[in-house]
């Protein structure tokens, strides 16, 4: 995902969630998102067993 893709996603998500990003923090927000998106590649492509459940579990 390049910088333009990130910018497009963030703008779309911002509009969808009604969460406007003030211009004063737009550049830092895009940078933070890019850092997280890059970090996420480290575990998104990691092969997990199909039976692995997400950690938070509802306990009745």
């Amino acid at each position, binding site marked *: 995902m390049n910088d333009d893709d990130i910018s497009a996603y963030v703008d779309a998500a911002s509009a969808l969630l009604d969460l406007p990003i*003030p211009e004063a*923090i737009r550049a830092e927000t895009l940078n933070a998102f890019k*850092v997280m*998106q890059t*970090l996420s590649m480290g575990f998104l492509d990691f092969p*997990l067993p199909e039976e692995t459940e*997400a*950690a938070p579990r509802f306990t009745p």
Partner: protein
Amino acid sequence: MKLYEQTAVALAGMVRAGKVSAMEILEAHIARIEQLDPQLNCFTDTTFARARTEAAAVDARVKAGEDPGPLAGVPVAVKNLVDIAGLSTRAGSKIYRDAPPAKADAPVLAKLIQAGAVLLGALNMDEFAYGFVTENIHDGPVHNPHDLARVAGGSSGGSAAAVAAGLAAITLGSDTNGSIRVPAGFCGIFGLKASYGRVSRAGTFPFVDSFDHIGPFARSTEDLAIVYDVLQDSDAHSARPAINPARIGILGDWFQEGASEDMLDALSRVAKGLGATATASLPEAKRARAAAFCITAFEGGQLHKQNLRARAADFDPATVPRLMAGALMPGEIIYQAQRFRAWFQSQARELFARYDLLLAPSAPVTAPLIGQKLMNIGGVEMPVRANLGLYTQPISFVGLPVVNVPVVSSGMPRGVQIIAAAGQERRALAAAAQLEAAGIVAAPVASF
């Protein structure tokens, strides 16, 4: 030894024996705070009137021959995300500065008071606990008592610096990604992050439900153990499991990559002191840290979404971009991060079949300068604020109990994590006590 230099156990012992009054101890600490806190900036609120009432009550119990509790007359303070009756719980923010005052003390604070402690006030922190430096834009930075030009660490920076400087014998902080262990390491004191879920979070301002822990700072392992017992209504502090050197692993790979010579020396001293020689590998810690980073931003972003929408300009500029980005993160990333968390937990469990304890530095470097933006980690320039928790984040990711031990040093303090299997706090505390008895770790009050 001056009163402010005494451990909590020593102070309570003197009060219980009638050798000194809780009021004398309190006034010594108030004088210390008034003298030094203008330079350190640990306290955001003081509660001296309340403290005098509590100290008088302790002294009255002693005089009446009643049991004043295991923390009789011990001066304590709490990170300003812990509810204090009558004060707004601001969590380091501007936004909650005018929130309605808390109606009651958080249960963790109430337990300390019930045990005879005396509350000095609330302590400075990174806004909403999102940081490792405690350079709070609203309240100013906390200064490290060992070098006022350096950070105290964060996000519980006020909690760590107050204990290190002898302003309080015990403080409470919180640890989501390292916010007890990093500042305890930077300030040269002991800190305990218990197993996830072990200590109540009721009445404390949340950050990341998946990782938040509340825990104590102290200047001795005995103090940590007693406070831990008080917080969970147990009296088992004297139980100390035997330490088997053959079952202690020194974490390699990720947990040493980029660490400074200073920090590796500290790790080596702790390992030697415990007789540990084996190198242990906790696989995929880098991915674990990445997943913790993303879950943190996401859950924090969700928590603060309404204020991000309405009052973005009132956040600390150092905090708000990550919260905003986290609030916009796609669900796939968080779902897979939480699946990875379950897998990583299984790896940690396997490792604890072979080991009782694991060792790792609490941070890659000693305390950076206040205002420093970048640091060199293994030859790579990295932002300070986001990367001081490289070695702590994978551990809190799976909720393991950790004691930070302050390795005796002639330079800036250096902390090492003693990590145990879930529920095995006693083992980490026992190892810390063994090192303390051998003079390898210690937390004397900082002189400056």
